[in-house]
């Protein structure tokens, strides 16, 4: 198992390098002179010249990449052209809210999806099973912004039940909770379909195995068979799937945050790109890529810990 985890950590090295290259590539590929772009439209020629020498833009690409890596190592991502705050401070302020949103989305959607999937597997072939599966296919096909817009339209505006703009505060306050419900429900919705489907398939698979038959023969109640012998083993592929969906979830967070004006990384990224705030755009994109890699790595390690077969190898 240790070997498995080490291997996983080793694979992430080229990927991290990829993230750094991506950030660097953003800088070189941008049409026009990087120094002019970074300095913003209001900059004086002196400022542009200073940036050019600071970044070593007149030197060969390899040297530039070295400079860039050094700046990264010092946590220097530049300053936002709009707010003039450092990119790092902007990112730090937005990470918390995004993490809260992801957490709030997972905390309801994963149990609901696993419950629905298990129910569908146990009642296989019934009307309820078909209904759950139909809903899950429909759920996968819904554009996430549509879910968000409908939530705002009905729950927020028509029935005026919940606030739908911004963040109310930390998650442990009442206002914080009230504000996060609509974004978290919209975002979590994209996970329910795929996870419910995977749970159903996986539970059906496990219920066919010998140890379940033995449990039945021992005269265990059906509930305990399903929960203790079925679901527990069925969850391993489900965990993997949740990890694979992390990209969708992160992408969904970008859309959800924009719709609900929720002050997270996603909204920051879209805002920066639309307003040509290049340093901030670069920072947000890199932090999103990093988050995605970390989530995937965690899931892979969890998987190694969860699956007893991995431990014997």
């Amino acid at each position, binding site marked *: 198992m240790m070997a498995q985890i080490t291997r996983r950590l080793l694979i992430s090295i080229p990927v991290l390098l990829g993230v750094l290259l*991506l950030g660097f590539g953003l800088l070189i590929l941008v049409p026009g002179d990087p120094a002019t772009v970074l300095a913003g439209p209001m900059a004086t020629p002196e400022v542009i010249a200073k940036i050019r020498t600071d970044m070593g833009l007149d030197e060969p690409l390899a040297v530039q990449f070295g400079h860039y890596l050094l700046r990264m190592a010092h946590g220097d991502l530049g300053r936002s052209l709009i707010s003039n705050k450092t990119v790092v401070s902007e990112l730090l302020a937005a990470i918390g809210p995004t993490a809260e949103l992801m957490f709030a989305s997972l905390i309801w959607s994963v149990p609901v999806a696993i419950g629905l999937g298990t129910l569908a597997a146990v009642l296989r072939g019934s009307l309820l099973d078909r209904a759950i599966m139909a809903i899950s296919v429909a759920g996968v096909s819904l*554009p996430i912004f549509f879910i968000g817009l409908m939530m705002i339209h009905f729950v927020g505006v028509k029935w005026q039940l919940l606030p739908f703009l911004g963040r109310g505060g930390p998650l442990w306050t009442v206002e914080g909770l009230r504000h996060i419900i609509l974004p978290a429900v919209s975002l979590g919705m994209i996970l329910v379909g795929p996870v419910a489907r995977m749970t159903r398939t996986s539970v059906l698979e496990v219920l066919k195995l010998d140890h379940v038959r033995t449990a039945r023969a021992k005269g265990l109640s059906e509930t305990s068979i399903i929960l203790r012998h079925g679901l527990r083993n069925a969850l391993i592929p489900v965990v993997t799937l949740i990890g694979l969906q992390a990209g969708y979830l992160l992408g969904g967070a970008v859309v959800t945050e924009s719709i609900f004006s929720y002050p997270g990384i996603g909204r920051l990224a879209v805002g920066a790109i639309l307003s040509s705030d290049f340093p901030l755009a670069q920072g947000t994109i890199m932090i999103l890529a990093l988050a*995605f890699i970390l989530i995937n790595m965690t899931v892979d390690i969890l998987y190694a810990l969860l699956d007893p077969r991995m431990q014997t190898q």
Partner: protein
Amino acid sequence: MTSIDAAAAVDEQAPPAIQPWWSRLMRDPIALFATAVLLAIIICAIAAPLISPHDPFATSRAVMKPPIWNAGGSWDHILGTDGQGRDMLSRLFYGTRLTLIIGVVSVGLGGTFGSFIGLLAAFYPKLEPWVMRLVDVMLSFPAILLGLALVAVLGSGVTPVVIALAIASIPDTARIARSIAVSVMKQEFIEAGRAVGLSDIALFTRYLLRNCISSIMIFMSLRFGQIILIGAALSFLGLGARPPTAELGMMASQGRDFLLFAPHIAVIPSVMIFIIVLATNVLGDALRDVLDPRLRS
């Protein structure tokens, strides 16, 4: 034994004729319905200039007119008008057209390149670890992120979105193409081809590619729905097609400002995306069931 007897004997030995996959697919009423819906949508998209009742870009004073089924709707604008008085039905036809084109072009480009490197990895086992590592790294960047990065560099527009979606389709297709090709490479006819001295190019195109292409195409069609959704999301964020072009995601985004008074402006294009993706997903599921009976539940 007469020749007729011999034929009869052969007949008895022959396995029952296997029905082609499409005839099995079309016996599934839901798949049939999804196909019909998709075909209808594609025809409307192609024929958009012919069947649109109005100019999709012409603004008018009749803003936010409701669709025909609501009070105040008229036959002149069956689906009503948007916030600038443009005919929703015409914009829907044009918008669907652009959304479909974005999807087809990106899945086509990315899928072609992905299958090519996947097949190469199977054909030259020495290349395999390199190709697969590259694919792993590419899988680490979700499509939306690629889209954001490209738009940051190139500015918003259809092209960066298509490039991002195409790149996002590469790793999955490469993996699938490789796994399909590996099993084909084990077949005897490949060895036979080698034995008669065929060049690598001939072996690759005539023996490997031809035997893999249909499975790969089917897999690519499964990806289509997801790609459409991501593309629409990027347009919704304002990173894709630029106004006044009609694109479904962008139309939904414009409708956002009128949600309170004229919800149809956002709802109609969103529902259209939903129908396209749902039909693709349903068809894809049915296709997989028919082609790969092991996966049938």
